[in-house]
């Protein structure tokens, strides 16, 4: 016979202010199996825990029920507590009489007390059925993978590498750097983006613990925390990295030009190219889709001029399989395609550009060498209109969320226009100005006061071309008047959106994403860099819009989490996982696609039936991958797959305690 102890917590007045805790303890003494019951002000406090330990010893208790707050808060506390008293940590049950009772029934004290008694009754019934569970250990590979080489990926890599861990950065583009490499100056201090980014890029590339795998993509992720097996595709660069000296003669001589992605279509690049002058690695790639040699075997000039003989037209994609203990996802963001806005011309007016294009237009190494010239006729604009929230906060045509960075970068752009074009007039259409952040509101105020930026609260209803001007029509909602501005250049603060392939990548690596395809953290407040898949962390804008300071902070946080994991040679695994009853499993495989963590495979087992050995298939749970969600248990028609600690027997015991 099991000997159950019940401990009812007051949680100060949180519980005791509504629930009659003494009566709960009193009545629970009569429940079958209960040997001891007590109430106390704060069970989670040290004296509270001592009370439990003492009672276990004195009354020879072997099952414990704590009636207190949510198990999310203190289940672990009490598991550790009873382990100290020498009994299995999984012999504790929590009856949540705070969140599930006192907090929601503040005005019905009598009924709340009765409900608390019922919750304890159920917990006691389950506790009696609890089986001992043991944590297992698994080895941890001391190597981290970072997907995405923007500032988030770079920062996380440097932190991990400095802590002594080996890191591979997989970047899909030919260079690391991400969007920050395209930005001119950075708010709120207006220091040059390249000047603060390039040293980090150099540090990452020179670090003995960091390997850069640029022009590479993730093909497949298998395994589990501490032991991921990742297949990486190194796309054929057509240039041998080991012999290329980065002299650049091939790029210079290449006769074919195409639109530069880095310059956002505002200038041209060669077909053999490095995306920007400070690219790392500073070795070119051939864009095979545009190269005439790959199209029809003609040209090959680059190969003839390369003194190092580095051009290799025959190069194939390479596939590497590497083992990692932890993964940090840092794939960043893209910009909303504003061509859905017919009122802004569906993207057909050349002098309506995005904020990122503007960054290139003011950048000294950009297509106009830092002189602001509008795309259509390369004239210096005098009247510049900025429109914020394009695609952000617009449920009709765009996204519901705020992109967070545009209020600040638009203020930055306004100051840059005023600094570079003395007689320029700047107008900014806005819905709200959101500049929370250290030094941010001061920056915004300076933009208005010292740089004469004209902030107009209202939306733009139409932009149209009239001669060489763009007529911008909107409303000034503060004075309820229509406004019309003759602009030379219009800059749209387009929303931040996830990478186009964000969902596909998430499915490949097994992490979640929200309705907008931003990757979801394990807990919005208390686990902001973890994902629901153990050992996989998030850094930067792949999780949601962020500026650089926030991105860097999150990257360092993700690195710290990964460090915590990689610094151990082995780790404990949670024993609340599914288990298959092979005797009754029919091998139908229904559970396999249900599992969100890809933890179930089918395996063959051999069996002797009436003297003959037969082979049949059954489900097999990888306990390191299983996160204990229980989805599979519902799918199985023969109840052959069950979740430990939440078995049918245990759940039914609770139901019976309540209903019978």
């Amino acid at each position: 016979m099991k000997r159950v102890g019940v401990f009812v917590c007051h949680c100060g007045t949180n519980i005791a202010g509504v629930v009659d805790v003494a009566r709960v303890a009193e009545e629970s003494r009569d429940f079958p199996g209960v040997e001891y019951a007590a109430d106390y002000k704060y069970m989670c406090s040290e004296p509270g825990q001592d009370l439990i330990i003492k009672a276990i010893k004195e009354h020879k208790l072997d099952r414990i029920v704590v009636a207190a707050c949510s198990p999310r808060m203190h289940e672990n506390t009490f598991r550790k507590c009873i382990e100290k008293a020498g009994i299995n940590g999984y012999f504790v049950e929590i009856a949540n009489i705070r969140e599930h009772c006192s907090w929601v029934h503040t005005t019905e004290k009598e009924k709340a007390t009765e409900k608390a008694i019922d919750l304890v009754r159920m917990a006691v019934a389950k506790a009696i059925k609890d089986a001992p569970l043991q944590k297992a250990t698994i080895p941890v590979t001391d190597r981290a993978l970072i997907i995405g080489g923007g500032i988030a990926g770079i920062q996380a890599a440097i932190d991990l590498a400095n802590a002594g861990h080996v890191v591979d950065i997989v970047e899909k583009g030919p260079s690391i750097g991400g969007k920050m490499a395209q930005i001119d100056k950075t708010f709120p201090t207006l220091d040059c983006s390249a000047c603060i980014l390039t040293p980090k890029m150099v540090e990452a590339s020179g670090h003995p613990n960091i390997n850069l795998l640029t022009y590479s993509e993730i093909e497949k992720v298998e395994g589990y925390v501490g032991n991921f097996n990742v297949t990486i595709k190194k796309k054929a660069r057509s240039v041998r990295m080991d012999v290329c000296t980065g002299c650049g003669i091939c790029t210079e001589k290449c006769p074919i030009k195409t639109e530069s992605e880095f310059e956002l279509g505002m200038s041209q690049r060669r077909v053999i190219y490095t995306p920007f002058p400070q690219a790392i690695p500073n070795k070119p790639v051939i864009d095979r889709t545009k190269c005439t040699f790959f199209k029809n075997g003609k040209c090959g000039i680059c190969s003839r001029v390369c003194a190092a003989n580095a051009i290799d037209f025959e190069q194939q994609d390479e596939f590497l399989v590497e083992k990692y203990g932890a993964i940090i996802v840092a794939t960043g963001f893209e910009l909303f395609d504003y061509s859905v806005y017919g009122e802004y011309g569906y993207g057909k007016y050349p002098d309506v550009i995005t904020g990122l294009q503007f960054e290139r237009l003011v950048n000294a190494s950009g297509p106009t060498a830092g002189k602001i010239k509008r795309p259509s006729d390369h004239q210096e604009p005098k009247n510049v209109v900025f429109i914020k929230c394009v695609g952000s906060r617009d449920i009709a045509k765009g996204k519901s969320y705020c992109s967070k960075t545009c209020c600040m970068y638009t203020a930055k752009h306004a100051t840059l226009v005023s600094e570079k074009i003395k007689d320029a007039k700047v107008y900014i259409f806005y819905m709200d100005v959101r500049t929370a952040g250290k030094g941010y509101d001061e920056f915004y105020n300076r933009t208005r006061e010292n740089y004469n930026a004209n902030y107009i609260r209202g939306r733009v209803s139409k932009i149209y071309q009239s001669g060489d001007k763009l007529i911008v029509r909107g409303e000034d909602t503060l004075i309820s008047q229509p406004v019309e501005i003759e602009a030379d250049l219009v800059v749209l603060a387009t929303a931040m959106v996830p990478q186009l392939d964000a969902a596909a990548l998430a499915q490949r690596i097994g992490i979640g994403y929200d309705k907008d395809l931003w990757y979801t953290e394990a807990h919005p407040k208390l686990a902001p860099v973890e994902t629901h898949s153990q050992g996989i962390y998030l850094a930067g804008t792949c999780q949601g819009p962020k500026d650089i300071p926030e991105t860097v902070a999150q990257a360092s946080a993700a690195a710290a989490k990964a460090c915590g994991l990689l610094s151990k040679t082995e780790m404990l695994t949670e024993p609340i996982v599914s288990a298959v009853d092979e005797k009754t499993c029919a091998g139908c495989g229904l559970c396999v696609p249900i599992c969100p963590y890809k933890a179930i495979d089918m395996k063959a087992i051999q069996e002797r039936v009436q003297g003959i050995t037969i082979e049949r298939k059954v489900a097999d749970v990888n306990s390191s991958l299983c996160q204990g969600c229980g989805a599979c248990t519902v799918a199985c028609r023969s109840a052959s797959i069950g979740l430990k600690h939440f078995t049918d027997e245990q759940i039914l015991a609770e139901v019976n305690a309540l209903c019978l």
Partner: protein
Amino acid sequence: MRYAYYPGCSLSSTGQEYDMSTKEIAEILDIELWEIPGWNCCGASSAHLTDHLLSLALPARNMAIAEKEGLDVLIPCAACYARSKAAELAVKESKEMRTAIEETIERPYEGRAKAKSILDVLANDIDIEKIKENIDTPLKGIKAACYYGCLLVRPKAVRFDDPEDPQSMDKVIQTLGGESVDWAFKTECCGASHATTKGIVGLPMIERILIAAKEAGANCVVTACPMCMNNLDMRQEQIEKEKNYLLDLPVFYITELMGLAFGVEPKELGIDRHFKDALTLVNDILEEGGRTL
């Protein structure tokens, strides 16, 4: 093809040319128009400013009569189209609303009879070959600013074309051998009745549209709405006088230009009734095609 025909009040008053030209081209295109017997006013803007149910019940009554006949409803006027479409969608969307409407009009209406703008029919329902084979005088020399107005392709629920940059009228003009210009005022509001009630607001709205058409290189404006026609055609001279310059932009209904291309006499289409002289341009087109006025 057979449609119930809802001319609406304006086509029997200020927009008679629209009615005449619609009937002319319908005959040529073998479209049988069954004029809804005893049709009532759709309520247009006055009803939906007065009472929501009334604004739906008025057009629903016409639609219900057509539904009984098993026909979709062809509607030239943009405002009538918008209101009738709103009624059609309202009964489809809500059971309660349908019951309320049916009780008010004392007959069933399930939304099976669909409201169709004549522009939608000409651009999308009629086989383009059918139009081509009827062309007698291609609209060579026409540079049309196709003007859809604010109502025809909006809101999203009633639209049959892109609400910011619609193309269906342009397509029809091009099929008829004319050119259409690319301009930014296709769906601009003409001010509706403001020109009458508050000229200071309404007239500049009209002026802006006409100037934009002119700047885009058009030699005429084409519309599918009697209200727009009124404003752009009738008010043009007033604006010219006030501002002391000539706009000289004839305004046509799309059906008139189609009739013209099909060889119908301008008089039978009502083109001689316009305020702004349209016959000079028409004459040029006819001469080009070997006809005269």
